[in-house]
């Protein structure tokens, strides 16, 4: 019964085939009813009649008030008719006037066109228009896509070929400091919502001819631009092929954020662990590209995806590599401890206080007994209550406007920290445990793995309350078994540790100094491990150090 219901829900909606003949587009009586699909548009050729083309485009786009159709005559003796079509607001009006309209209408006559020998369109392209980025469009799909991307489409009567002149410029957010990944030391630029800006930010940091950007368009309706970036020669070609294969099979209505893609390209969709890193920082993307990973940039969001992602990549932050290595190592170790605490502390507390009191030092046990005296709930209920309150406050604090958010945290601190303890509903030790867990979970550098920890804490707490430390161990082992089987784009999730790559341990718990980071990760950069010269350790006795070439 339930399965049948679910089946109904999961069943794909039947694709509606567009009805009506395609060729009769011109005579379409009610153009507003017509739905145009990309496949159809690919079939429609640009015809040599300007009027035909304009009618067709008007049928497709004409209802929109922001699409401008401008007819004019070329400034030559023949007075050939022509038209430009563009979306108002997506193009640079100055450039349109000065680099396209002015030369076409006023100056094209002086260029000396020979109508007998030359092709008018080629002539216009070569000698009249001063815009730099010009492409041809022979089918309507190219033409319409170009227009919607902010290009100017130039149609000339008698030519079965249109020109797409890219002078797009629209209002977009400036490059600002990334909000979700703040560093004390390091570049302050973050990605924006504009794909081209984002690729620029990467290219500016990586001036190698081997940095490759490849474009995709995903989304039946939104037709969102997606760019994958990788460094040829470092990345393994199989990896790039796999990323492309997984992206190409996505057939979805719209892509508004890279999270849409993430769910399609994960290896295990049921795992609570994130298998793709997301970042707002171009420097982080470049660092991972140098390790032989692939970045996926999506138009309309500042969050880039990085694949493959192992567990340890979620524990690394860009600043680890900018700060001196001794301090980075210490902070990273602290982070691993905090990671363990954010996952385990409440469940350990429950297990030990309800099953294994003999493990607690005597004095602590007496303090504990005194603190719990009169508390009406068992430790599990107490813990669940406090965790729930804490998570609720956290969620409320994130969503609310900043001014209200602070008020919430004050109320929360008072309610949790003071009133609940004084009322004798929870013990003060539980408040401390929940608070430490909260602080520890804030130390996770990756928001998505912190979310996983927040989630997994609860089943572990239940296990602890039923089976004690044995239950906690069972939970941890189940998690480890799952993690050991998990892969991200074919790379084992626990890579560097299991399977063990001793050479890569220099970037797990410790962050080795840069002069010792002489090889790239074994799993991602299999083909080209050597990333820098060896023996670069600075020494006071040999000023200048040894010079060694190589890449």
């Amino acid at each position, binding site marked *: 019964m339930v399965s049948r219901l679910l089946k109904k829900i999961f069943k794909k909606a039947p694709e509606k085939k567009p009805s009506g003949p395609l060729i009769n587009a011109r005579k379409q009586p009610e153009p507003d009813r017509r739905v145009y699909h990309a496949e159809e548009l690919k079939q429609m050729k640009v015809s040599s009649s300007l009027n035909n083309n304009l009618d067709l485009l008007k049928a497709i786009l004409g209802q929109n008030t922001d699409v401008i159709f401008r007819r004019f005559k070329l400034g030559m003796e023949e007075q050939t008719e022509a038209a430009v079509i563009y979306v108002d607001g997506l193009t640079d009006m100055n450039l349109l006037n000065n680099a396209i309209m002015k030369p076409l209408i006023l100056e094209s006559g002086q260029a000396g066109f020979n109508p007998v020998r030359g092709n008018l369109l080629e002539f216009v392209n070569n000698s009249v228009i001063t815009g730099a980025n010009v492409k041809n469009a022979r089918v309507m799909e190219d033409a319409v896509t170009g227009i919607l991307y902010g290009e100017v489409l130039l149609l000339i009567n008698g030519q079965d070929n249109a020109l797409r002149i890219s002078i797009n410029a629209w209002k977009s957010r400036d490059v600002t400091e990334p909000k979700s990944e703040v560093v004390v030391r390091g570049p302050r630029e973050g990605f924006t919502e504009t794909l081209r800006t984002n690729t620029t930010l990467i290219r500016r940091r990586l001036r190698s001819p081997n940095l490759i950007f490849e474009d995709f368009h995903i989304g039946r309706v939104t037709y969102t631009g997606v760019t994958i970036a990788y460094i040829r020669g470092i990345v393994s070609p199989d990896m790039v092929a796999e990323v492309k294969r997984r992206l190409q099979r996505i057939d979805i209505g719209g892509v508004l954020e890279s999270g849409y893609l993430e769910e399609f390209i994960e290896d295990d969709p049921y795992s609570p662990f994130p298998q793709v890193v997301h970042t707002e920082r171009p420097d982080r993307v470049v660092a991972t590209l140098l390790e032989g990973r692939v970045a996926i940039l999506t138009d309309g969001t500042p969050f880039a995806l990085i694949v493959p992602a192992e567990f340890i990549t979620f524990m690394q932050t860009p600043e680890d590599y900018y700060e001196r290595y001794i301090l980075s190592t210490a902070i990273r170790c602290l982070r691993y401890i905090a990671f363990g605490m954010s996952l385990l502390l409440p469940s350990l507390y429950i297990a030990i206080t309800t099953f294994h009191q003999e493990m607690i030092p005597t004095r602590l046990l007496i303090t504990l007994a*005194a603190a*719990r005296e009169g508390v009406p709930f068992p430790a599990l209920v107490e813990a669940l209550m406090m965790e729930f309150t804490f998570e609720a406050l956290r969620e409320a604090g994130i969503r609310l406007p900043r001014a209200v958010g602070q008020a919430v945290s004050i109320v929360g601190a008072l309610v949790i920290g003071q009133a609940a303890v004084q009322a004798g509903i929870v013990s003060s030790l539980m408040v401390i445990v929940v608070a430490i867990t909260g602080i520890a979970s804030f130390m996770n550098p990756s928001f998505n793995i912190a979310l996983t920890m927040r989630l997994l804490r609860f089943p572990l707490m239940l296990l602890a309350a039923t089976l004690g430390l044995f239950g906690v161990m069972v939970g941890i082992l189940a998690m480890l078994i799952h993690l050991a089987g998990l892969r991200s784009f074919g790379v084992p999730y626990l890579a560097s540790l299991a399977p063990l790559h001793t050479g890569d341990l220099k970037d797990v718990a410790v962050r080795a100094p840069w002069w010792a980071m002489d090889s790239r990760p074994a799993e991602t950069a299999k083909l080209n491990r050597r990333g820098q010269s060896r023996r670069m350790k600075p020494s006071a006795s040999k000023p200048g150090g040894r010079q060694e070439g190589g890449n």
Partner: protein
Amino acid sequence: MSRNNCHMMKINMIIKIIVLGLLLLGVMITQAACWDHREVEQLGIVMATGVESAAGGRVRIIMQNVNPTALGKGAGGGGGGGPMGAANKPYRNRSIEGDTISEAIRDASREAPRQLFFAHNQVIILSEELVRKRGLQEVVDFFQRDPHMRRTTWIIVGRGDLASLLDEPGQLETTPAQRIDSIIDQRDRTSEYAVQRIGDFLELLESESTQPFTAVVETIPNLAVPKDPRHGMSIGQIPEPPEIIRLNGTAVFRRDKMVGWLSQYESRGLLWVRGEVKGGILEIPSPDKETISIALEILRSKTKLQPEIRNGQIYITVSVREESNLEETLVPLDLTKPETIKKLEELQAEAIRKEIESALAKAQQEYGVDVFGFGEAVHRKYPGEWKEMKKMWPELFPGVQVQVQVETKIRRTGLVTKPVEPMQW
């Protein structure tokens, strides 16, 4: 069609897993009261257990429970005066009789509101009367067998009434049990009593040669109580208690019965032979006069036992190496001269030798029990002969010839080389 089927089966499986998971979750939440689940506040944490003999061959158990209510919720602590004007005591003592210890303890649940929890038992006190007359055999089994009992719990002999020993007021710790535990923690500051954990004690109990021993606890009058009874009372403070607890000397056992007692001096002699002196003050006479006037602080010591069998006689050489600091002197000494130090070292060796000999005399002549581990030393060196000897070791032990060799060093002499002397003119 087959794809569709496959799809359906997959969904069926997922639903099964979800339902199973929900069921498990339900069971886990509702059945959270597992058989060994207990909240901290349900525990009656036992801090000390006393065992006395009662009439009719029964035993009386005195248990000291923590009373968390009196400790307050984090703040305060120790209870600053209850509603009735009297402070709630942070512990409660319960006394109960039974034929066996386990019966007595189980019987206590008829009067104790909480589940008695022995894992944090700090100390087991056996009354002197019990161990002298009836022996340990009948009481130690429970402490050995019960899984809650730890082998690290101190076992000591209590002089006098255990109920009053476990209820001496004026402790700095939460409970009198912790007070005893904290006092024992400082045993190396004097090395004047030899105390055992129950695990080691039980090992000695079943040893072929070495006999068990452990420290004795007693109450003594508190000399800090002001002579004038009005003193300090006017401002409402709790007065000094009339009695205090002290660990005093070592009880010596033969098999499971206590047969004798070693004083502080003799106890240290025992510890010297066993190589367990780790600190304490050693007093020696000054080089010129016979009066005791110099105190040395023991830093560390090491002991070696070397047995030898010659012409049917057992000889044991006890060689002690000791290092100390000069801590105090009542007479002026010229410490710049190496001879003075040399002399002090000789006097110190002599003092240690005397301590050891006093312990040897007591153990060999008076009690006839080998608490030193001589038998084990012989066993190690002469395993073949030991087979014959072990049966008559109690008879052989008093006749063992012991030679004591002491080697001492004085490391430092403190901040002054020449003590302050009143000006003479």
